[in-house]
């Protein structure tokens, strides 16, 4: 019995939150990796682009709520996904047309494009702050929990409860759906194959008649969908605040590089690697050990490897270690 309780503690406080957080990171990391693999630059505007899409979801949610439209037990934000994604893609394509295209045609070095993306980051941040302001906003509505701790305790008679927030469930399910569709698209359709070919070897791809404009367009569309969904899921689970999204760019980069940049599978798994590492290393295992150890050995300290203040530092340290020992990432990415 104690063993089941111990597992429940872990599930409740580490595994489910890590899966949720990992899914949010994974979506962002695939976004980074696609841009890096196909457009060939590190996009420093990642976090703010995700924030931009989420901003529309927040505004539309408020609008729909004022009209009285809702999804019952599901959050209203789910209906706003298509509209927000559309606005996001429109914004990305505008930026690409006026900013990135010039450098792509000129074949500028990736560093210059990265610098340009810093400019885009400033502009995006300004637009977001001018439209919605820098304050914290919650736009989650509908049913809060799928499973409450008290209900679970009544059901099973265990002393430890299991809580699953509905945002956690939605995040994991929506991520799995979105990512599977994307992988299906990349692997099974002709356009997807041409994208992979373009990413592997641009010259060969051009030689075999692949239209680079189409590849770039599709890349931004997929990136826009993933960025918006990732941003909305993060905002639903925590809350929407522009500054936090900017900061999230860093673990997202860590996830993309750890997974092997340019490799979407790697980025997907990298998100979970970072999330699990962050949460496992900063969780206080005291309760876990009180269940599994005999009473005489019960710990009296928190048994926490690192304080939660160092959550971000954990992912960055992993990144630095990976960069040192395996610069192409755990799952073999591009070595451009």
């Amino acid at each position, binding site marked *: 019995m104690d063993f089941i309780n111990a597992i429940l503690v872990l599930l409740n406080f580490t595994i489910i939150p890590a899966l949720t957080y990992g899914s949010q990171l994974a979506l962002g990391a695939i976004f980074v990796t696609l841009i890096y693999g196909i457009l060939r630059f590190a996009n*420093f505007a990642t976090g703010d682009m995700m924030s931009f899409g989420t901003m529309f979801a927040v505004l539309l949610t408020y609008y729909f709520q004022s009209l009285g439209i809702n999804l019952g037990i599901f959050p209203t934000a789910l209906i706003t996904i298509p509209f927000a994604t559309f606005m996001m893609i429109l914004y990305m394509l505008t930026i690409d047309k006026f900013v990135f295209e010039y450098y792509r045609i000129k074949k500028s070095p990736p560093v210059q494009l990265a610098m340009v993306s810093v400019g885009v980051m400033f502009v995006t941040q300004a637009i977001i702050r001018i439209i919605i302001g*820098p304050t914290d906003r919650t736009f989650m509505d509908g049913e809060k929990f799928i499973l409450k701790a008290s209900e679970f305790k009544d059901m099973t008679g265990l002393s430890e409860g299991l809580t699953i927030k509905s945002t956690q469930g939605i995040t994991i399910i929506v991520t799995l759906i979105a990512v599977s569709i994307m992988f299906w698209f990349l692997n099974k359709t002709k356009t997807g194959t041409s994208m992979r070919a373009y990413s592997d070897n641009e010259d060969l791809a051009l030689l075999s008649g692949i239209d680079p404009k189409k590849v770039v367009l599709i890349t931004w569309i997929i990136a826009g969908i993933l960025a918006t969904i990732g941003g909305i899921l993060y905002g639903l689970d925590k809350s929407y605040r522009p500054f936090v999204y900017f900061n999230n760019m*860093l673990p997202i980069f860590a996830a993309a590089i750890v997974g092997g940049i340019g490799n979407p599978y790697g980025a997907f798994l990298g998100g979970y690697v970072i999330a699990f590492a962050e949460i496992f290393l900063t969780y206080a295992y005291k309760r876990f050990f009180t269940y599994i150890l005999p009473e005489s050995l019960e710990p009296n300290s928190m048994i926490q490897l690192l304080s939660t203040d160092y959550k971000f530092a954990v992912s*960055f340290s992993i990144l*630095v270690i990976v*960069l040192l020992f395996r610069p192409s990432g755990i799952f073999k990415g591009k070595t451009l």
Partner: protein
Amino acid sequence: MKQYANVITAYLIMFTLIIMVGVFQSWSIALTILNYCLISAVMTIGANIQWGYAGLINFGIMGYTALGGLAVVLFSVAPVDEAWSVGGLNMMICVVIIISIVIAIRYTLKKIAPSKKRNYLIASIIIIGILLLRIISAPAIEGIESVEPAKTGFLGGLGLPVLISWIGGAFLAAGLAFVVGKVALGLRADYLAIATLLIAEIVVSIIKHEDWLARGVKNVIGLKRPAPYEIDLQRTQWFIDFVEKFHSGKLALINSAAEKQEMLNQLVISASSVYVKLCFTGLFLSVVIILLVLTQKALYSPWGRMMRAIRDNEEAAGAMGKNVVKQHLLIFILGSAIVGIAGAMMVTNDGLFTPGSYRPMRYTFVIWVMVIVGGTGNNFGAILGGFVVWFLWVEAAPIALFFINLFTSHLPETNEIRVHLINSASYFRFLMIGIGLLIIMRFRPQGILPEKIIKN
């Protein structure tokens, strides 16, 4: 002379702008802007050495700035004796342990051939070391942090004069740059950018959360100053006499003695703040000039030519027998040390150390915009970039307000869009900086004052 014409014009325009702020807003504001411009200029000199001379991307400027600030606390604040007696010994033991971990790892790396066994050995050294550190430091940290937590709660510093701490800041930053450079300089350009950005975040998060070191987010206030305090000046006779003489025309117009005295008091108060800021300006200006002379000398020396050769073609420079790795490390350390000085200067100017305020936006990306807008590889350009961008950064809100009022003047005062725009005027600075950067990158990628190669 002719070849410097554009440099001189650019600087004249810049100083006219600052003087205009002095005339239209106030001299105190103008001097504050000027001081921050000078601090930014030191940072851009550092960043320009790395990016302009050697082509190294360092997105970790924030980390070195924060370390420079930390140096001011560690060197100039008076030591907290009680905290030292509670936890000083344990902390010293911890330092010894950290040093011995590093030595042990280096020893194993040298003596044992690469193998699985070596990896396990290194891992176990690190784990045992960290466990020892935790066990020894935990009670000490608790003890130190409970010494008057509202006022101190940290070890304090060495109590040295504040100017020495600027040099200390350079050394701290150089130390970090040495470690980072050893680790990360082999990476490709954009990986290097990301790695340095993340390492800087780690450094700042350590400074923020280790309260025993520098109070963390509780901030250290009332730092020493190399300039006199306003309140002392206001009581000093020679200063009052000086203000009286300076404003004698204005004071002569007032007849009643009481009113005259009141007027004089006000003048003295405002003059004292200007005087203190002028002291800082003189100090910062001398730092900028010293650094400028040194970097200009270096740029046009054989060493500078070698750096440009390495930047433009690493392989060719390597083939000519230049040690690229070593030179990259050297220039990374030099640039970071200069940024460390700037960090220390900034904290000294503010008189307080606020780890919570170190954010990559303000301390990394804005500095980079300065270097690129001003002119990479040209020291005068980089400094000008620091001036222009900082000026815009500060004055963006008033400028934006002016334009908002202009374009919405046909709308009624209570119009929602107008009110919303006026409330968010301060965010237009991001827009201006971003668009400025994009325009410069597109139409003048070499910056306002491009790099100039002088051939003898």
